[in-house]
């Protein structure tokens, strides 16, 4: 009796299926519950990986509800890569369509935020952008920069930054009923979230796409007359959000 790896795998993720014949215990009888060791290892190890990777979602749902969600998600979306630290990319979309949690509208964005933190943590190192190239009015207009590899931008129709802060920072105020854009940066090793003022995210995206400082500013001002370049630039420089334009694009 041969046991193919596909039949082993089928039984692994579906506890309703019988243990494949041809797997034995110590005395030649059927393996029975011994097969459950593998079933448990897979579900538990992947659920733990998700719990580590999605601290905000876990905090919002509570440990028990998160474990239930993870059990369902792991079976529906097993990892497609051995890089378990990036496992769960499908969770935001899964949450959007997952009936029992659909009523928590902001949950998918919270999962996106957790993912962005993790991607930022493992992103390539890059020297921060040198602001001295901005000296002189023409030079400042013509300069270019890119987002550092560890920088992530998130648009949300929810008060995502306030929700993150309420759950992750002691004594934080209640979320306001507004849409919020967030920038994740990694000044050294620990990713940090920054709430972006209106227009900032557009300016940063334009810049990353290759526009000069001047072009990006003009484009954002045309649709958002209150955009404050100084404020955005200060945020970007103090958080090491930018790197030299010639740094390899991520």
């Amino acid at each position: 009796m041969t046991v193919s790896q596909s039949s082993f795998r089928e039984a692994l993720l579906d506890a309703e299926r019988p243990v494949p014949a041809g797997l034995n215990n110590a005395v030649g009888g059927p393996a029975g519950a011994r097969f459950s060791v593998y079933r448990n290892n897979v579900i538990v190890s992947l659920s733990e990986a998700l719990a580590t990777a999605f601290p905000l979602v876990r905090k919002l749902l509570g440990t028990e509800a998160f474990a239930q969600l993870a059990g369902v998600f792991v079976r529906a979306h097993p990892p497609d890569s051995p890089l378990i630290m990036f496992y769960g990319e499908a969770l935001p979309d899964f949450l959007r369509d997952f009936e029992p949690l659909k009523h928590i509208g902001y949950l998918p964005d919270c999962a996106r935020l957790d993912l962005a933190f993790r991607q930022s943590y493992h992103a390539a190192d890059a020297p921060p952008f040198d602001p001295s190239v901005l000296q002189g009015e023409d030079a400042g207009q013509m300069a270019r920069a890119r987002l550092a590899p560890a920088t992530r931008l998130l648009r949300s129709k929810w008060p995502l930054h306030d929700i993150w802060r309420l759950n992750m920072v002691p004594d934080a105020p209640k979320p306001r009923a507004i849409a919020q854009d967030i920038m994740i940066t990694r000044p050294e090793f620990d990713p940090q979230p920054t709430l972006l003022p209106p227009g900032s995210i557009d300016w940063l995206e334009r810049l990353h796409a290759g526009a000069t400082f001047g072009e990006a500013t003009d484009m954002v001002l045309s649709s958002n007359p209150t955009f404050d370049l100084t404020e955005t630039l200060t945020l970007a420089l103090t958080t090491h959000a930018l790197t030299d334009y010639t740094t390899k694009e991520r």
Partner: protein
Amino acid sequence: MLDTSPQNDRLPSAPGVGYKPQHFNDLMQTPGPVSWIEVHAENYMGEGGRPHAQLRALQERFALSVHGVGLSIGGQEPLDTEHLDRLHILIERTSPASFSEHLAWSTHGAEFMNDLLPLPYTDTTLDHVASHITQVQDKLGRQMLLENPSSYLAFEESTWSETDFLSELVKRTGCGLLLDVNNVFISATNLGYSPQSYVDAYPLHAVGEIHVGGHDEDSDDQGAPLLIDSHGKPVVDPVWALLDYTLRKTGSRPVLVEWDNDVPDWPVLRAEAERAAKALQPVQ
């Protein structure tokens, strides 16, 4: 040209520990008898940040063993060449003293199961595993060590003993072996044979590294003992005794303490490393 000579193994014949980031400062300041560390390859396959920086700092003080958990060498399907490329980049970047992987599979189709799954020992699987090992060694340009699994069940179709299977792989590929004596103890208990007889039959000349670790005790649905490889507890006395038994036969070897779950504070893990140092003393 592939160098499979034993001299290429540069891990010190001393205690090592599985590295956990929470031990970084303690390990740098009070390493005790620890002179080398082992990391899981996949955890260092990001692009940069703290994992890379810590590894660079650690490598200034400790010899490094890179231990893969995701290559699926025992898989029926071709190796994931994308993953093999990532491994190659990591090995080039860190030039570790040793690279090891498992006699197990974890990938099927596009799915990665995140567990070390068992395979039957037959002529067919022997051909598969041997060609995978050769492919890995050719790609990395170095010898690899292959680790014996912890077994919870047996395949009816197996026609080779595990020790003969491993011996044949060594002969065919020139690979070395990582002998996990905790796994030997677990498999022997679970499948009803003597762990000493397993060690006796093992191709000990090929052993480049030894693992010890903790396990959980359970029982199967017939009430038979079932040990589970949890790496979440101290090493038990019978496993230390099996290490002593093994070292008497192999002579001095690099001995790693694995503790991956419910990771304790550094002094507890260091005490395990001191215990391993004591085991090595009579054979140094």
